[in-house]
């Protein structure tokens, strides 16, 4: 079992391509051991979603992803009935239905007969399994990633509370469906809105911020192996200064990785002001920010 100690968790994540620090590794370890969901908050682009993907990769578990948005409800997250298919089947089976209901003399008897067959039309065949139900029903234990939960609203969180605490869904027509294997649940949030306290208390709370220098250098070198040590250090140093500038969209780890890839395509050995000015579009995504990156580049390397 590759998750027996915290240290081993960290090493396994590293082989899976995710450089984790102490807290992240501890969170994963506890989540697996105590079967609690993890709520990950942090600025965009620091590796929240990729943690779930790395986990599913290294543990060889299927990843079930639920992307939340404003107005998402039960029908899109848990399960839904395929009305269209039910209607279609009713139409196609009309002749059969006629013969079945033939012997009934009164309307109430006919309805009674039909009611006996109700379970036909509300059966597994017409049930659309949305991500949460799919993860509960999968044969293998799965990783359920509920992405950007801060974009949904309070009612959706209340719904999730029920599912995440008992790992079961109640479908009125079919009864209670318990999870065959309790999934490893990861919720991510960009902290644009406060998640309700009830949900926070159910989960382990992990904050992934911008990484320290060593970790970021390790991440860059692992994802973009062509980058040499010196260039990676220069790159990360510049990025950290850029983050302190107070840009409209501060560059995060994904921008560092993009930039490293761009630099390796351009076969750059060392950073210079000219290179930064040319490739500023990978770091800054607003016009005003690009101007300030240019200034910083001049100040550092010019």
């Amino acid at each position, binding site marked *: 079992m590759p998750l027996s100690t915290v240290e081993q968790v960290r090493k396994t994540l590293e082989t899976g391509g995710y450089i984790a620090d*102490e807290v992240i590794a501890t*969170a994963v370890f506890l989540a697996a051991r*105590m079967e609690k969901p993890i709520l990950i908050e942090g600025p965009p682009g620091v590796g929240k979603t990729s943690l779930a993907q790395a986990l599913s990769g290294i543990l060889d578990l299927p990843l079930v992803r639920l992307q939340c948005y404003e107005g998402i409800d039960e029908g899109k997250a848990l399960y839904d009935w395929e*009305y269209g298919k039910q209607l279609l089947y009713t139409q196609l089976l009309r002749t059969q239905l006629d013969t079945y209901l033939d012997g009934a003399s009164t309307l109430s008897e006919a309805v009674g007969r039909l009611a006996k067959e109700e379970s036909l039309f509300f059966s597994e065949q017409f049930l659309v399994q949305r991500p949460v139900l799919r993860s509960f029903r999968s044969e293998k234990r799965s990783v359920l990633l509920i992405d950007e939960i801060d974009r949904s609203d309070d009612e959706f969180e209340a719904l999730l509370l029920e599912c995440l605490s008992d790992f079961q869904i109640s479908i009125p027509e079919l009864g209670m469906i318990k999870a065959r294997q309790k999934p490893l649940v990861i919720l991510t949030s960009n*902290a644009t809105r*406060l998640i309700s306290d009830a949900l*926070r208390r159910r989960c*382990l*709370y992990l*904050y992934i911020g911008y990484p320290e220098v060593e970790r970021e250098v390790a991440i860059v070198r692992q994802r973009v192996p062509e980058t040499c040590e010196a260039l990676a250090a220069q790159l990360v140093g510049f990025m950290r200064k850029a983050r302190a500038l107070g840009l409209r969209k501060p560059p995060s780890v994904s921008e560092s990785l993009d930039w490293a890839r761009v630099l390796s395509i351009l076969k750059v050995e060392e950073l210079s002001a000219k290179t930064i000015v040319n490739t500023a579009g990978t770091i800054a995504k607003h016009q005003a920010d690009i101007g300030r990156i240019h200034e910083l580049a001049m100040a550092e390397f010019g």
Partner: protein
Amino acid sequence: MERIVTRFVARLREKGIGVSPGESIDAVRALAAAGMERRADAKAVLQLTLVKSLRDRKTFDETFEEFFGGGAAARPRGDLAGAGSEAFVDLEGRRRTADHAEKGDKSGATLMVDDQMMDPDDLALDRLEETGGDQQGAGPRLSVQTQRYRGEKLKEPKQVNNYTQGPIYISLDEEFLGKWRNDGVKPFTPEEEAAMEEVVARMVRRLKKDVRQLKSRQTRGRLSVIKTLQKNYRHGMVPFVKVLRRRRKERPRVVVLCDVSYSVSHASRFMLLLVHTLQKGLLDVRSFIFNREIAEVSSLLRTMPLNLMLELIDEGGVVSLQDNSDFGHVFTAFKENHLESLRGRPAVIILGDARNNYNEANEEILRDIRERAGYVLWLTPEDETSWNLGDCLMNTYRPYCDRVEVVKNVEELSRIVEELVRCYYGGGPDAFRSAGPAGMAPVATVKRLPWRHGGVTVKP
């Protein structure tokens, strides 16, 4: 181990981090699962299970260092289990001697232990048992007294205050006179600013949640036929999914007139901070500041960062602060320049102490303003007893206001504004009018009977 975690959780709660019993159980289970060999591991485990928001992280770090740092900070702590048992000793020490006190009489052992300063070696339990005498070497706050009375008596409790029943004398010194002369007001310290912002943020969070509920309750209930048919196109127009009508979002309108003279400057600054935060989502606000002249600051509030704007006001860049307050003039100017441009029937909030410096009162103009506005709320920082002292015109203006409230501090002001916003969303301005000064009356919602009764509305 559970006891240590429980004490740690109690300390966190004292510092303001809410930790539920379920979470502390989780923490204990997690520590058992993860092991406590390394301090960093254990800290990570406690952080994951007990701290559920970023705000509390800093407090948690400090409390962790304080609690598990132990007595001698200089000693390197690599072993949390060791530190844990020392803390155990500290606490046990305290508890132990409390037992002593219970067993003996009043002059039993009393031990004052300061957890942070104590070096655990001094509090070896066996030493306590044997010697039991004064141990006044170790820390500056350690004194033990036992049943066998030896040594000095404990000091008498210090006299803190003298409560007399005689007349109270107020010395008319500079500071006191300064307050009456409206000068020498200290600006806000950064801590006060942060505290104010915290109060406002909490209020806005509360309001947003409630407002959403109130709004959603209001707009549900009526079917939108066209949208339902459109949505059910693929079901052959059979309405499996119904779409309800959504009323247009209408934010309540408020007009705020803030007196920025020195006597009211604290309150008006807070009011501006409040308005600035509320206008982002909850209210449609037009804000004015006045001293003798009146100026509109709504656009400034929207665009400039708040502290810059407050500095600008303090310098006198918007409205001259050298003049004396003249409410009559302000009302006249407001009526001439701005009254027609008010949309809807907003609620007008006037924040001022009504000290007019013996100028003209012009209270009829306040009556005109009220007619146009529909609701006038006056907030004053002075008590009712001082309303007829000096040049205060509160009693003159009072009949023309729908409501007059005394706001002495930040909490009261935010409570009143919160009430106003809630009432607005709940039942429109009429609800606020009917809510007396005693507090919020239950919001009266108009009940609508279903269609088969012809859509008749029934007032409860």
